[in-house]
Structures are given as structure tokens and as C-alpha cells.
């Protein structure tokens, strides 16, 4: 057999989606619930005293950040789990012995995880509309941005899943690195609100550029110029792709 193994991509993709379907209730109920809680706490309780950020009602202002926060963690969690579980249970033997290339493997696993992550993003977006009017200045850019973010973080999660050798290692990066970076990256505030030197320090946090870019697609403005955001997103995409390429070439933690 030569050529691209589409059947394998389809098989893995559907297998992963079936896995998500089994946990559909928690998979979608959790983001809806957390979004609602954030709205109650930040939007109503605190937001009522803040009214506006950069001329945007606070409750609407936090929507892009909320979507990003959930999509980061969902992407990482789903993609890392997807490849970690076969390693853990031993079923990875089948993937290793199948006529499937590295590219096909990545497309299937990352594609499935990104699909899940996008649907979580949409769910939050829809839930937010129950609480507040959210204008979207550039709908196509918003969709594109969501897709690229989902793919980038799923690639990152995939790397994590290959690297991790225990469930603890699987959790450590999303909880101890990504979560704080997101909270400090302006998910719930504009970095213009920070005093110096924190404002300059914050600019070293790559997540700032991602959230700012996504916010730009909603309100036509962000903390940093949109082309910086694009640069960071594409940079992350390229970096993760390169690392995955290296992992498959060397068999790093996939093959002895």
C-alpha cells in the first residue's frame, strides 16, 4: 500500500470522538458551568463596580479570555490524554505496528482534540450570550483564530502526552504553568490596567499575545498589535510541529 492512509486517520479520529462522546455530559456541562460561574463572580459581582474596560462593558470584555482559558486547558488535556492513554494501557502497540505515518497520526489525534476544543469554545461563546451582548467585529478572523489556537495547543498537548510518564506529569504543565500564565496573561483584565514594572514584565508572557489577538477579533482592539499576536500564534504552531517531528524521527518515548 502506498499513498496517504486516510482510513487510519478516519479510524483514529472517530475513535477519539467516541471517547469524547462517552463523557459528553461532563465534557460540555463543565465549560457551561464554569462560564456561568465566572459571569456571576466577575461579570455581576465584581464587574458591576468596574463597568468598562477600554470602552467595552466588563462582562463582554472577559468573554474572549474565558473562551481562551477553556480552550487552552481543553486542548492540552484532550490531546495529551489521547496519546498518553494508549501508552499507559499498552494499546499503543497497535499504532506503532500500523502502516501509519507520523503526519497521519498527528492529523488524526490533534484533529480530534481540536474538534472537541472548538466545540467547547462555541459552547462557552453561546453560554456567554445568555448573560451579555457580545459583539464580534471580525467573525471570520475569530473562527480562524480559534482554529489555530485549538490546533497549536493540541499539538502542545500531544507533545506533553508523549513526554509524560505518569498522570502527575500529565497534569503538571496545564495546572502549574498554563493556568497561571493565562490568568496573568490578561484573560480577565487589560494589561494597560497594570502598574509598571508589571506591565512590562507581563509582555514576556506569550499568552498575553494570544488573548490579545483573540480579543481583537471581537472588539477590533487588543493589548498589543494584532500582527504581534499572529506572530506568536504561528511561532507556537511552528515550534510544536518541529518538536513533534523530532519526537517521531527519534522515536522519543514512543519507541525504544
Amino acid at each position, binding site marked *: 500500500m502506498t499513498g496517504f492512509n486516510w482510513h487510519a486517520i478516519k479510524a483514529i479520529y472517530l475513535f477519539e470522538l467516541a471517547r469524547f462522546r462517552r463523557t459528553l455530559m461532563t465534557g460540555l456541562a463543565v465549560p457551561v458551568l464554569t462560564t456561568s460561574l465566572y459571569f456571576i463572580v466577575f461579570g455581576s459581582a465584581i464587574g458591576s463596580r468596574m463597568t468598562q474596560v477600554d470602552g467595552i462593558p466588563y462582562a463582554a470584555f472577559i468573554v474572549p479570555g474565558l473562551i481562551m482559558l477553556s480552550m487552552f486547558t481543553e486542548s492540552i488535556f484532550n490531546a495529551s490524554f489521547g496519546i498518553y492513554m494508549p501508552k499507559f494501557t499498552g494499546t499503543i502497540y497497535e499504532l506503532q*505496528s*500500523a*502502516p501509519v505515518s507520523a503526519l497521519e497520526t498527528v492529523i488524526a489525534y490533534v484533529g480530534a482534540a481540536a474538534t472537541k476544543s472548538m466545540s467547547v469554545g462555541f459552547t462557552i461563546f453561546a453560554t456567554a450570550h445568555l448573560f451579555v451582548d457580545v459583539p464580534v467585529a471580525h467573525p471570520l478572523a475569530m473562527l480562524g483564530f480559534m482554529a489555530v489556537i485549538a490546533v497549536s495547543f493540541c499539538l502542545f498537548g500531544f507533545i506533553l502526552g508523549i513526554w509524560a510518564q505518569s498522570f502527575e506529569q500529565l497534569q503538571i504543565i496545564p495546572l502549574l504553568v498554563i493556568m497561571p500564565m493565562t490568568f496573568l496573561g490578561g484573560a480577565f483584565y487589560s494589561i494597560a490596567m497594570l502598574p509598571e514594572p508589571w506591565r512590562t514584565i507581563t509582555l514576556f508572557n506569550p499568552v498575553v499575545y494570544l488573548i490579545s489577538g483573540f480579543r481583537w477579533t471581537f472588539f477590533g482592539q487588543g493589548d498589543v498589535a494584532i500582527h504581534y499576536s499572529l506572530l506568536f500564534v504561528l511561532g507556537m504552531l511552528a515550534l510544536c510541529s518541529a518538536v513533534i517531528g523530532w519526537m517521531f524521527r527519534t522515536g522519543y518515548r514512543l*519507541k525504544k
Partner: protein
Amino acid sequence: MASIITISALTKVYASGFAALKGIDLTIEEGEIFALLGPNGAGKTTLISIICGNVNPSGGTVSVAGHDIVTGYRGSRTAIGLVPQELATDSFEKVIDTVRFSRGLFGKRRDDALVEKILRDLSLWDKRDARILELSGGMKRRVMIAKALSHEPRVLFLDEPTAGVDVELRRDMWGLVRQLRDTGVTIILTTHYIEEAEEMADRVGVITRGELLLVEDKATLMKKLGRKTLTIHLSEPLAVLPPALAGRGIVLAGEGWRLEYSFDTHAERTGISTVLRQLGDLGIGYKDLDTRQSSLEDIFVSLVHREEAA
């Protein structure tokens, strides 16, 4: 018969520095059942894992159905079905779904008729909608075989197919393997149960410490290395072995009712007639004689011991 797998100068050194394979050369013929026999840690699983793609080789080449396993991995892997030693299944999947999944993974179009046939042949059809976690260990192993067969491989690898399986299931498994061979599938199995190799294989390879000690037709191997034991059933029990018979490898057994004499079938003089004449001279009567070919197990143990002594 044409060869389907050609292995030459294959080596594997793990990152730890452990040399698991030290230059394996082996050719597998299409349609045969080949048993790879060796103690634990001999390199059986490493060898299989390299051929199937689970472990990267350190040196040497392997080709399967005319495709190099590295440069032509799609071709070689498409030709192979693997049933690994460890039971590894997706617990929450349904039996039929996991078999369909495997077929897709190996690049084949969905074929419900074929999947049904495989499941029926493996007595899994009634369980097709059961989740794998509900199945017994033996059933799970059948599921793994079904997965390995789902893409119609030409070569099937069974790594320790009957490890930890009860006697009845082992018999079933042997029957199944023969049935598969009849359909033209080449089967390579590893085992450390000699009984299994003896029961099923056409050819046997003995591997220990990463080296193939020998590869031989099972029948030839047993003939070549075989020893036979002559058992003499006495009419009257003996209290002790008569001194005249001592020093020839004759032992008294069965509470004095039997004499057992072991001899090399290839020796110029087996010594049987001498033993029987001496019994006549001593006036020891016997009512029956039988000889027994030594098993592969005996052969194997002596081979491995010879290797260790060297």
C-alpha cells in the same frame, strides 16, 4: 515455498547498553508455522517488535513480503498482524468497534462481512456488542487476535499466545492457529512452552541471549538431537540395581519394577542388545519393553545448558 520474511545481521542495543539481539539471520517461509523458542529475556519479543515496527533496529535489515521494514514500512506492516504478549485493550470499546478500528488503522476499507466472519471464527460474535472490560482474559486475547486478523495479514505474529491461559483454552488456541495456517497465513509464535512448539510448529528456532542457536525442522531437530529411553518392565521387582548393570546409565525406577536405560539414537552402538543379554545372563525376567523419544524440552534444556557452559 517462497520466503516471506528475510532477516539479516539484525542487532539491537537498547539505550541502557543491553544488547538484546546480536546479529540474527533468519528466513521465514510463506505458509509455515515457525516457533521461536527461548527462555525469558532471550530476545524473542525484541525480535518480533522490530519486525512489526514497535522497536527500532540498531543494525541489519528485515524485509517482509518484499518490503524493507524501515524504508517500505507501509508495505511491510500492511502484511503483518501482531498479537502481543500483554493483554492491552480499550476497555470501554465494544468488541466489534475495536475490530473495525484496527482494520481502518491498517488502511483497509470497512468490511462488515469480513469482520463478522472473523468474530464468528473466534467465537466472539455473540459478544460483539459487549464492552471489552466485561470479557474474560481468554476472550480478551481472542479480541486481540481478531484485531490482528482484521486487515487480512499474510503473516501473523503471536507473542506468547498461551501465557497465563488455562489448558483448555490453550488447546483451542492451537486449533485456531492450525485453522489459520490452512488459510495460507504464515504464523510466527514465540513461546517458552516446549510443548507448544512441539505440538504446532513446522520449524523451530532456538534463541538465547540474543543469538539464534539453531533453526531446524522440528522433526529433524528431534531426530538429530533426540535421545531415547528404553524402559524395561520387570516380572519381579528388584531391591537394588545389580552391580553388573551399574555404570551404564541404567537406573532402577518404579519401586524396583522398572529399569530405565537412556541412549543416543545416533550412536553406532546403542547398547540395547548388550543390556538385554546381560539381563538374560542375570536371570532377570521382563514382561514388556518400550522406548520413548526425548521431548523438545529435553533438547532445549541441553542446548541452553551447553551454551551457558561455553
